[in-house]
């Protein structure tokens, strides 16, 4: 099983299943206990300068926006970041908190392209390693499986592979080339869910994106949730638990925590807010004004919500599709 090709991209977080196991064994608590805390406490306790962090799903859809705003507020520096990047990564980049990006897609879909990542990457301030969307998610999956890599049939033959840190080997069973994707064990995962109990057992409605994988790939895991439910309720439908408590370090209550993004079955995205930011992002000064108002200007998520206003939020609730 010879290595045919090795991507030349930097591996910002090399796969280390044994290191992850050791961390779990010495630092992780498998006791079922109350982990509810304020976002300030969760972020200050579990995110450190230099950490490799990941966010799920992406900026306009069920993203842990209230947690990301808190990370920016606390000015956690020299972060290395993975994930689909839209509004959440823009905020980190605008606040100059990121050293390196494992990147797959940093645009705003229907709305266009944000200027934040372009500025950061084009002037060489932020290092990048590129992956396909499948590729980066399979990196989480490999970590979630507790193995150093998984084989996939993406990225082969392309510069996406060449500039990644994947490898191509000859499969010893079929003798055909396959791409090996290195596992991505993260220091911190941030995930926003519909329901969690106080111990961290979580439910997600609708698509689960890559929550299953990222939760399992994170040494430290902070959950924000629209709603806290009882453990009795969790125990009634155990098959609905996507993230079991033992993966979770902190549970933060954050109704409207995905705003300005959407939360399926709960509230629709705030298109006006998003498009305004996108416009502002073209101008570094206006980007800072946005941060001053919406992030630094709010002491916590509650103040942010007050600033958005209940009228707007009720409107967004009325705009989301039902079941």
């Amino acid at each position: 099983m010879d290595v045919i090709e090795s991507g030349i991209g930097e591996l910002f977080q090399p796969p280390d299943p044994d290191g992850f196991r050791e961390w779990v064994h010495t630092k992780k608590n498998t006791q079922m206990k109350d982990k509810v805390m304020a976002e300030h406490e969760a972020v200050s306790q579990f995110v450190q300068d230099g950490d490799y962090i990941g966010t799920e799903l992406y900026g306009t859809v069920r993203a842990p926006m209230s947690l990301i705003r808190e990370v920016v507020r606390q000015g956690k520096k020299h972060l290395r970041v993975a994930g689909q990047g839209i509004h959440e990564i823009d905020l980190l980049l605008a606040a100059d908190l990121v050293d390196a990006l494992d990147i797959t897609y940093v645009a705003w879909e229907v709305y266009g392209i944000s200027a934040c990542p372009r500025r950061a990457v084009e002037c060489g301030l932020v290092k990048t390693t590129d992956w396909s969307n499948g590729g980066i998610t399979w990196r989480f999956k490999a970590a979630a499986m507790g193995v150093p890599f998984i084989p996939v049939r993406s990225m082969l033959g392309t510069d996406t592979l060449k500039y990644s840190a994947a490898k191509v080997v000859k499969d010893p069973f079929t003798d055909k080339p396959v791409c090996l994707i290195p596992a991505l064990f993260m220091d911190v995962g941030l995930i926003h869910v519909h329901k969690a109990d106080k111990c961290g057992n979580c439910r997600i409605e609708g698509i689960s994106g890559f929550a299953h994988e990222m939760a399992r790939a994170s040494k430290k895991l902070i959950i924000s949730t629209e709603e806290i439910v009882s453990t009795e309720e969790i125990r009634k439908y155990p098959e609905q638990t996507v993230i079991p408590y033992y993966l979770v370090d902190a549970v933060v209550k954050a109704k409207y925590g995905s705003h300005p993004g959407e939360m399926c079955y709960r509230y629709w995205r705030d298109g006006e807010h998003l498009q305004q930011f996108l416009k502002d992002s073209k101008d570094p000064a206006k980007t800072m004004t946005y941060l001053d108002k919406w992030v630094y200007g709010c002491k916590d998520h509650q103040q942010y919500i007050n600033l958005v206003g209940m009228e707007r939020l009720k409107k967004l609730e009325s705009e989301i599709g039902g079941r």
Partner: protein
Amino acid sequence: MPDCNQTEFLICLASKLIEDRTTAFVGTGIPMLAAALAKRLHAPNLVSIFEFGGTGASLEKLPLGVGDSRTFHKAVAASGICDMMETAQRGFIEYGFLGGAQIDSYGNLNTTVIGQYWPPKVRLPGSGGANDVGSHCWKTIIIMRQHDTRRFVPKVDFITTPGYLTGPGAREKAGLPPNTGPYRVVTNLALMDFEPETRRMRLIATHPGVTKEQVIENTGFELPVADEVKTNPTPTDEELKILREKIDPERYYISK
């Protein structure tokens, strides 16, 4: 040209490429509109698959992104990205839709950078799911809104997504699943396929009022021409009405 803009023309043309009773891996933008239009017209049994987990949504309202709640509204399944990518990897998805900033004659696409890799002259969005779609779907349909020599280039700056790579057999040699690859290229000027022996892009139909020469002129590499070059059909009134009134009434896409 009919009384519609180029985007509308593109969408209607792309929509017609989708057969009924199949699956399509649908990305942000024109693919969503094409799939929604096909589903309302000739392909009611089309199952659209979105990379973050939505399978078989009603598409009553136009999704604004590949993870939004409309991608799984009244869907038959809502799972996650790995499941969808692996569904494609196992061969269950017929059509994939792709776009790009640059394309070469083998259908290789660039959506990553213009210029060197890092730091780049222009940083583009990146692969997203494109590389996976282009690797695993049986037939990828490439949509290029601007057919010109800046975009149709002899060599793309970065191969984000594999077309036929360096020619016949190259995909298989690289380890990509056999018998997959670009199927059609739809642009604001014409419709192209890939010549089976050489795997090079070939002109097969032009839009009304567009000449073969115009297409060749706007292509930055040698573009073979099929023996018979057809004229692409103009969108019907019905298509335009549904597109404008039902699918994108807010004109997120079709006004562009």
